């Protein structure tokens, strides 16, 4: 029977682990959001939805960081 730890758990865990090791400024939420898009649409040929989703998420993160900077 399959592993109780799903493949999706493993892939996300890898991304978060790399993020941690690199002490990246990118938030956990953004990594999760981008991976979720990739996971859901990984077998779709039409990638527009994914690209639009990534752009939206990254721009939102950039705005959030700008707001944080201007607050400090």
């Amino acid at each position: 029977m399959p592993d109780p730890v799903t493949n999706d758990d493993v892939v996300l865990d890898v991304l978060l682990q790399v993020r941690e090791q690199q002490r990246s400024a990118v938030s956990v939420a953004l990594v999760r959001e981008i991976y979720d898009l990739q996971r859901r649409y990984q077998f779709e040929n039409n990638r527009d939805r994914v690209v639009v989703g990534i752009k939206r998420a990254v721009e939102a993160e950039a705005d959030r960081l700008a707001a944080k900077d201007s607050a400090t």
Partner: protein
Amino acid sequence: MKIKRLQIKNFMPYYGVQEILFPSGPANVCVIYGDNMRGKTSFLNAIRFAFFGRATARHLRDINAIDLFNVEAAEEGDWTLGVTIEFEHDMVDYEVRRELRTLAHVARPQTKEDLKESFFVRKGGVPLAGADLGFEMNQVLPEGISRFFLFDGELLQEYEELVLNPANASKIKDSIEAVLGVPALTKGLAELQALLSQAQTAQAEDLKHSKNLQAQAERQITIQRDIDSLKTQIEKKSKEKGSFDERAVELQSRLEQMSQAIDLEKELLKTQSDIEKAGSTLKEKRAHRADLLQEGWVSILQPRLTMLRRDLEEDRATLLDAFAENANLRKEAAELQTAVVKGICPLCHTELKGAHADKVGERLGAIEGRLEFLEDQSSQFGAIQRKLDAIMRLQGSPLADRVITVEQEMRAASVRLSELGQRERHLKAQLEEYSGRDTERTRAEREQVRAVSASLGRDIDSLRMKLLGEQRKLDQTARLMSRNPVARSQKSSRLVALYSSLEDIFEKGVATLRDRQRVRVQDYASNAFRNLTSEPDYAQLEINENYGLTILDAKGRSVQERSAGAEQIVALSLIDGLNRAGRRGGPIVMDTPFGRLDWVHRANVLRYLPEMAEQVILLVHEGELDPQRELPILGPRVGAMYRIKRIGARHSQIESENGDIA
């Protein structure tokens, strides 16, 4: 995911509507027996067709849609085929149905353009449509990973190829990575790189108006243009290479077919010899039937023989009674003779004289007369018995029954002869096809195509190296600019920083994921291998970067020489490892999986099989899974058993174990 029901209509050898119900629960194995060429692979293709709209032949080549129609149905004018599958996924019931039919104005389709395909999906009873339909199917059952649960002997061979010659096994390596979720990161990485590139261009455009940063921004724009140009060249050359690679596979397949021609010739000779034998058998049976029919007069005499037999049996019974009477009379006569000689009555033991003596004398005389009559009769007993034996011989086995048996044997011989005739015609047609091909020319073309592909590969590698260099330059420039306070405050610079960080995470993530998944697959495959192998010295499997597996012995030494059976066991272990590491459960459908395994390994695989997946569907022939000897190993885990029976050369019927028509 659990498959509950499959309905096939006019699909390949399956004429008309046929249905199979699959078991669930602890008895999770469904065994489907079928001889070669009866439709086991077509059954697998029916599942593939329902889900993905395609059926595949060797080397994963698509079978022409026209060839999916059942020939008998098509000859009757019925150009409709369909496959419906009901299954459960995440506690929700699904139904997928795919149909093919001719367009309204087409009587007999010539190409797939003459056909109309319909695809329906119901989720929890609600029909899905448009983009939802494709998206839903990709969530439930992506085609990219389907090879790991819909697999045939060819997949096992591909795994073996991967182990023996990893350089030629890129396709299967891609499939393995798909099941392990690697494309989610590689595709993500490619998209992040493209977005980073766009963000860098936007950043350069923003900053070139700034006095201090103008030179760097312009340099960045130039590098970016070079990068874009390199990417376009790589893409173009990759496409070219892809088409040459496909052509090489096609030519390789053709060459393999040509080498099969020698085997076909041998098979043709054997078939012709079998035809001769079957012809002789039929002739013998016909002669036997003629002999039997010559005894036909016996059946006319049957009523008379029955009467005669009854009379003779009565006479024989009378004689048997007479024998018993004879014995009694002889005993009495002996007693009376003693009484006369001694002069003493045998009953009252008084002196025998006068009227009493006369009475005894009379009785003795009567007995002697009767005995004489009985002696005459007993001489007839032998003659009666001989007559009875002759009649019983004639009536022993009714002629009609014997004629029926011989006619059945004649029909079987005739069918065999017709089958062999068909096979002979088929083989001759195949050989004719091969004879028109020039092996040397094909081989030369294959070499040429491979050489062009290799040259394109080198060009691509060189362009990639250049691209890497340009990307490094771009990164340096971008980093320099981002240190500038003016640049840092720009939104475009923030986006560059974020995309750059994300690109790093995904890039390192791909390598880390591959390493981690390899370890998981290795552990699962090793566990499967220990269950499957009969060699106690083999301790585990070791995976390499191409997902090839090496057997390690108890001292950790790699085992270099492996038999064909061992290769198959390793391949099955890898499939099990991939299923456990990569899937959230679901069925495994195996077509002819025991090909080269000996009895011990088959038994090991059978014991382990029910644990490999939630549902196991085995398509086997009796030669690889003996119903008497090997099937019992699966024991109570067998939840359903079916047999694909031959009705005709182009008509197979699926019947359940108890003989019901499926």
